[in-house]
């Protein structure tokens, strides 16, 4: 019982640890750097506009949590974690799993389209070969 009480107290200490100003600024800088990277990639045409909303949303969430560390703290309490950083890691992992699944779905779709396209090319090539052969025959005649 004593041990449980000590652990609960320890968790409270972690959660009530005052926010460090430089942590806030670091998080804010990383978030803004992510937004800048997304915009730069779009400008250089290395990232298509339709893939940006998810990254803009992530950047926005990071900016929000950097400015409102109290929300992150509440979130930490709600999910039963000990420190806000574990919450960030946990959410990050969830995000990575979701984005991997999303890209696997997109990849499957792209694979199907490529297969259909290759099949279409094969059929069209055969038809073209046939037309060319007929035209050559006509020319000979």
């Amino acid at each position, binding site marked *: 019982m004593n041990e449980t009480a000590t652990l609960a107290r320890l968790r409270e200490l972690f959660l009530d640890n005052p926010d460090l100003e430089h942590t806030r600024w670091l998080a804010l800088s990383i978030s803004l750097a992510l937004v800048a990277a997304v915009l730069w990639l779009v400008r250089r045409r290395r990232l298509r506009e339709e893939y940006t909303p998810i990254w803009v949303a992530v950047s926005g969430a990071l900016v929000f949590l950097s400015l409102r560390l109290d929300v992150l703290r509440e979130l930490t309490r709600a999910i039963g974690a000990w420190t806000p950083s574990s919450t960030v890691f946990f959410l990050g992992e969830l995000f990575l799993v979701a984005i991997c699944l999303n890209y696997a779905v997109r990849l499957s779709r792209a694979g199907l389209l490529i297969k*259909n396209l*290759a099949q279409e090319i*094969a059929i069209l*090539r*055969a038809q073209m070969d046939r037309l060319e052969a007929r035209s050559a025959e006509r020319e000979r005649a």
Partner: protein
Amino acid sequence: MEAEPRAGRGVLVIPAFNEAPRLPALLERIAAQGLPLEVVVVDDGSRDDTAALAQAAGATALRHPFNLGYGAGLQTGYKYALEVGAPWVVQMDADGQHDPVDVARLLAPIERGECDLVIGSRFLEPTGYEMGFTRSLGRRFFTGIARLFGIRVTDPTSGFQALDRKVLELYAGDAFPSDYPDVDVLVTAHRAGLRVREVGVLMHPSVRKSTLHGGLRSIWYVYKMLLAVWAASSRKRAPAARSRTHGGPDERDRDARAPA
């Protein structure tokens, strides 16, 4: 054997990947049968002269720009057959395992309108065909899986098949697998109300060293096939199934339910 498509004529589809050493002999044997069909070799991105040899033998060559897989090769043949208005397709492997002598035998039930899909089975009649222990175990396992869905076949992995236009239309869809179309597509066809039948055929041992289902790939094959069978059985039935189910499934399924 003619390279020109003609309306009303069937298509013999041969998917081939690096089959230059074996293809000419097979095409010669097919030509010797004098069958009124268009022979279509689907060259699945071969690095050898498969397509050129096929054309030289008077067959139509459909060349994939890169390797897509055995199932995709077959499907290209189906799509081509639909495009040229072929009433049926017979498919056979390029490695010489399947005997062109049996093509007419496979086709007969379709031409009589008795069924939509005919599988050439190595095991329906005693032919002396021998399969390795692991593959034989796999065959029995998937025969059992097919039976769970009411499909009684003895050779669910046979690539020697005849298909009518209804099957072609179903198999030309996006659900058809690019790699191994076996029990999963049989389940899809059966659920769509298409009639499946087996006929006994003679099969020669494959001269290829590796098979689609051999070695470590067999583990992947079992996993993938079970998942595909589950997916096929849980999808909505194809429209053909709904219209045909009203006609009564008992008569239609008689052949597929014949004792294995």
